[in-house]
């Protein structure tokens, strides 16, 4: 499976998961679940909200990556790395918030919050590598791989 296919699949699955979490959070609002809503659980509520928002947003980032990322022909290594970084970021950041919220320690999130800065670094790296690939592609480095394929197609060659 090439990078675009992986990120597309990852993006949609993540979107499904984190939207499900969003519905779960709304249900907890609806049923006034104290584990989520009580003032004493305010840090947990914040972490779970952050998990939902980051997870959803990073799923969309992965899908946007699939739709817009470009690399010169034969130079897809950078793009492969960017895709991997974005997938890991999309996993680690929301999971850090989620686990940090579920296992909150007093006013602070649980130790899993340590995943968040790692995910943040990977996100930054992924975006940087994507930009590099786009720049190389724009500089005439070669055709643009279509969405869902690492190989340039005919129309790209013609372009």
């Amino acid at each position: 499976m090439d990078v675009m296919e992986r990120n597309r699949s990852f993006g949609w699955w993540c979107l499904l998961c984190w939207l499900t979490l969003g519905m779960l959070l709304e249900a907890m609002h609806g049923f006034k679940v104290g584990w989520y809503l009580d003032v004493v659980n305010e840090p947990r509520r914040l972490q779970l909200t952050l998990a939902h928002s980051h997870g959803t947003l990073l799923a969309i980032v992965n899908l946007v990556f699939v739709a817009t990322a470009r690399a010169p022909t034969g130079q897809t290594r950078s793009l492969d790395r960017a895709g991997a970084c974005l997938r890991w970021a999309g996993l680690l950041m929301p999971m850090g918030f989620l686990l940090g919220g579920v296992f909150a320690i007093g006013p602070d999130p649980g130790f899993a919050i340590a995943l968040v800065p790692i995910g943040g670094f990977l996100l930054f790296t992924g975006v940087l590598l994507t930009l590099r690939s786009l720049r190389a592609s724009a500089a005439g480095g070669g055709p643009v791989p279509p969405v869902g394929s690492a190989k340039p197609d005919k129309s790209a060659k013609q372009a």
Partner: protein
Amino acid sequence: MSSELQALGAAAALAAAVLAARCLRGERARLLAGAGFAGLVAVASVWAVATSPPHVPEDQVASRPIEVQAGGYVTSSKCRACHPHEYATWHDSYHRTMTRRAEPESVLGDFNDVRLTLEGKQYHLQRDGDEFWVEMDNPIRSIVPGPAKVRERIVMTTGSHQLQAYWFETGFTRTTGLFPFTWQIEEQRWISRRSAFVMPPSDPIDASPGTWTFICLKCHATHARPRVEFEGNTLTRSDTHVAEFGIACESCHGPAANHVEANQSPTRRYAQSLSSEPDPTIVNPAHLAPLRSTEVCGQCHGVFDYFVDERHMRTWFRDGFVYRPGGELGKYRTAKLTGEEQFWPDGLVRTAGREYNAMLGSACHDRGHMTCLSCHVLHQPVGDTRPHRVWADDQLRDLDGDQTCLQCHAKYGADIAAHSHHAAASEGSRCQNCHMPHTTYGLMKGVRTHRIASPTVQSTLATGRPNACNQCHLDQTLAWTATWLHAWYGTEQPTLSTDDRQIAASVRWILAGDAAQRALMAWSLGWAPARAASGSVWTVPYLAELLDDPYEVVRLIAERSLRTLPGFDAFRHDLIGPAEARRAAKAAALSIWQQQGPAIGRDRQQVLFGPDGNLRGDEFARLLRARNLRLVRLFE
């Protein structure tokens, strides 16, 4: 709500402009629609700015004490981020609202064009937008020349539970004045200060300036600094600062700047969370030694002799109190255990809000390590299902009343009736009813004493303080109490007078007691357990008599107790009216009672009813003539 409406209005205007732009043909028409929309937004913005009250930064407020952080105090806003539950429960408490700025959210009293009269002086209360005003005689005319009548703005409030008092600006530096009326929250009415506190009718009450800066700020604000200057005995300037209005986190936990700074580090926070040791950068009264813990509450809930020398006075005027929670209170002041006004003759404090002084003589505290936190909990615990208001009422732990005592005295738990000699489920078997009777007065009611002791007739004879037995069995004599205490507990029988043997103790306190005893009895006559134990029909003539008491507050309490009786639920009288009005109220109460055809029953001689069911007027009058007329002032 208004911002929400404004936002909706702006969105509607924008939508209308977009619709107009799409429908209109021609560049000029579209430009006109755009310009119209921009004009509308501009007009609305100018209107909103012009009509909103100007915001004055706190440091530029000149007419009242202001909030300024100093000395390591950072205010509750800093605590909220890490301690949301503690912040929320404190926010629900009456400690927070002890002092507030006068704003629509804080002012509970009726200021809608209300006119009040007190001792011939007129007070006109008005509301002007978000501001509250009082028009009255110039209260500082004798100090600073000025007009006879003034209209002053209310700038601060005190209290939000039973009563709310109001402070007006005086124009004299940051000195505020105390408005002579108080808003009684439960009954939604204005009462004079004399109706709220035990004060002799001969004491003048007026709109007096200055007391907040010297007295109230000690405990009604966090880290208060009077910052006053004198020339001789004359106050020349007050620039009073507080860290925070009301009794906030740092009143009990001490200044938190170091704690906040240290805990910026997440590694420290995680290490602290995993440690079993308390955080050394902040004081937690629950982790202090018992005496130090009690002192934290005691710093305000106590009466003290202050170390008053020139150095201490200078420090106090400039920086406020030096004591900090966790420190040794006795270094700076000593708890008072005698005094004419606030103490029973044996040194037990008799005004509410001074529980520390009473605790100090209790064996449970002195030998048993009991602290305030043994029974009270300052942050409503997670899982406590009581409504916030119920918990906030006296911030007690969510324990069955006896459980607080049985934490230590477990041996009585198995068979409480064997110890109490009352039915196990009855009020007579509740630990606090016998060992913490309502012999302290405060906030227009009887309040439980915090001197935990067993009832004796001897202490009543020596001090005049009601004992638990006679405060519940209002229709019984001291001899009756002495007999049962001797039979059940072997308490020594005291020597008793004829009246002690023949007349119910409550009747003697009501008719012949001093004002503070009468106030307590007026409340006891309405106390449900006492009514259940003693009956209530016979009490009406006594409550009616108290409606004509010289002390306003006694009249008020008697009226409230009377209203708990059948047929009196709508009974009201003019508390500050002339003597004729009071006598008329008394006659009206007796008339209602007689119309009910009261069945007094036999065996009521102790409460002065003869075998024919009629009140024995001669004995009633004899006791009234013997009334203790000493002037009583109970400063709460």
